[in-house]
């Protein structure tokens, strides 16, 4: 544990990112206890009120209390990102290891499929999918939809990492000492790739959150939940900027920016763990 903290002090990025994330988590835990999230529903207060003591973040045009919206909505957005990122990472890891380790025709198929899927822009396909599901879209369904397009990038990067590591001496030793393929993958390759997998996971979560917010900003997200992206959508729909209702769109934007900065720093920090050569940079 002590080595972990002493490392954190040297890796400023990772520490900063984790601190921001931790502060946000604390803020939400405190918020859940102090604020009634039922106030995130429409018609819970007078609409279009500026921030005051009674409504710390004001209200929007539908009567939602924005503090409650932020408290209720941000974890939902993060949850969508985590589910989509986790599923994408899982599929990507399996495919990446299979393609990189076994090579041959399996590798060609997986690699070509991933390349084609990568070139087709994800948002375009997501729009097609989401516009078809006109019934109530729940955050979990949204997460699954995003996950279906989150596996390509992890597959590619993990595959290239496995390719470089496959020829190392210790793999040869493992093979000679009689370990079968799966044992080699799990006991030799994966532990060495853990920092890299962690960095990829955070990156996957970050892009999943980005995709979720993008879809919601278009209005294709879960209509009934007060997620961050949907709040921005409603703010735009009701012309909040032109009407000067800055308290409507500014808090979600700030939260999203903080979330992305922290995720980005954590990913960059983990990248440094995985690739020590970048540590001596200016």
């Amino acid at each position, binding site marked *: 544990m002590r080595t972990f903290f002493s490392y954190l002090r040297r890796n400023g990025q990772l520490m900063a990112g984790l601190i921001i994330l931790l502060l946000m988590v604390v803020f939400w835990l405190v918020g859940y206890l102090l604020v009634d999230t039922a106030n995130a529903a429409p018609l819970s207060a007078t609409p279009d009120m500026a921030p005051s003591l009674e409504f710390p973040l004001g209200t929007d045009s539908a009567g939602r209390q924005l503090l409650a919206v932020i408290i209720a909505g941000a974890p939902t957005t993060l949850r969508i990102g985590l589910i989509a990122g986790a599923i994408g990472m899982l599929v990507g890891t399996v495919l990446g290891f299979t393609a990189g380790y076994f090579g041959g025709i399996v590798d060609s198929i997986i690699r070509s499929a991933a390349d084609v899927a990568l070139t087709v822009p994800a948002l375009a*396909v997501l729009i097609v999918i989401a516009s078809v599901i006109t019934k109530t879209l729940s955050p979990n369904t949204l997460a699954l939809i995003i996950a279906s397009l989150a596996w390509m990038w992890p597959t590619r990067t993990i595959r290239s990492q496995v390719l470089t590591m496959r020829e190392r001496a210790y793999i040869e030793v493992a093979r000679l000492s009689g370990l079968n393929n799966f044992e080699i993958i799990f006991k030799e390759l994966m532990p060495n790739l853990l920092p890299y997998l962690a960095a990829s996971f955070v990156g996957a979560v970050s892009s999943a959150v980005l995709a979720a917010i993008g879809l919601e900003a278009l209005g*294709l997200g879960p209509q009934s939940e007060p997620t961050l992206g949907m709040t921005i959508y409603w703010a735009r729909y009701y012309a909040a900027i032109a009407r000067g209702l800055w308290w409507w769109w500014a808090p979600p934007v700030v939260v999203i920016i903080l979330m992305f900065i922290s995720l980005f720093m954590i990913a960059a920090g983990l990248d440094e763990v995985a690739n020590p050569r970048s540590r001596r940079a200016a």
Partner: protein
Amino acid sequence: MNIRYVLGRLVFFVIVIWAGVTLIFFLPRLAPGRDPVRERLGMMVASGGVNAETIESLAKAYEAKFGLNQPLWKQYLNYLGSMARLDLGYSLARFPSRVSDLIGQAAPWTIALLGVSTLIAFSFGSLLGGLLAWPGSPRVLRLLLPPLFTFSSIPYYLLGLILTYVFAFKLRWFPLTGGSQILTMPSISLSYLLELIYHSILPGLSIVLASLGFWSLSMRGMMITVEGEDYITLAEAKGLPKNRIFLWYAMRNALLPQTTALALSLGTILSGALLVEIIFNYPGIGSVLYAAITGFDYFVIYGIVFFIIVTIALTTLILDLIYPLLDPRIRYQKS
């Protein structure tokens, strides 16, 4: 150039378009039990509307091509045929406009905005990133690192929101929305051109600022790797001037993976730019897409998705063909 390489890239291009087009065809039909386009047409016929007869004939034509009595493979072939002829159908909400016309009107705006912004961001960002990683550059540039970090993690449209509020609403330096003044008629004149540029500064700035961070940081990473290479040490030992080493040895080699990164992130850049257009009501593809989504105008949505896929695939193809020109090692690679 290696013929096999070019052929391989062309085949990839065709496969990508085919995969995208197939996805667009099958995904809506996967929705259990219903075809949203047929439902929408049925709704339009039932509700009457201005062009009742023409809507009926549109619905009948749709049924004949993609109707329930047609086997699925035949529908698919019909669909592939119309796509190949770039016949994207009619817009449902703005009948009788054709989808290809709508896209054709909006596309130049998007291409101009996106092309110029990406070019500026890529050039400046790469130069900045290279300077950041070069020991000989001014120390004061290091101060730019934190803001660059921040900007690279913000999605484009959020930056667009902030910029709109600060510069358009509060300071009134720039217009809030639109591609040009409301009542101006387009004309080939300097004043119209200046107006176009004036209205595109804020959207362009959002894209440039947000992607500047990404390009400079990734270029910095590449440069750090390149600086550790032996040929840089050799060049320094030979006594070549620092600027020459920086430009022709370090930057030149770092630009190669940077161009690959450009090719891979085209989809993300385009998606971000579409959302920026929506924020600024800029009359590009993004606004058309947004109107189509809110109006359940499925043909327009599919048409735009098709357009996006073709554009990205085409740009990727062009970049892939330029790449051997930049990196002779690819050119002489044994097949």
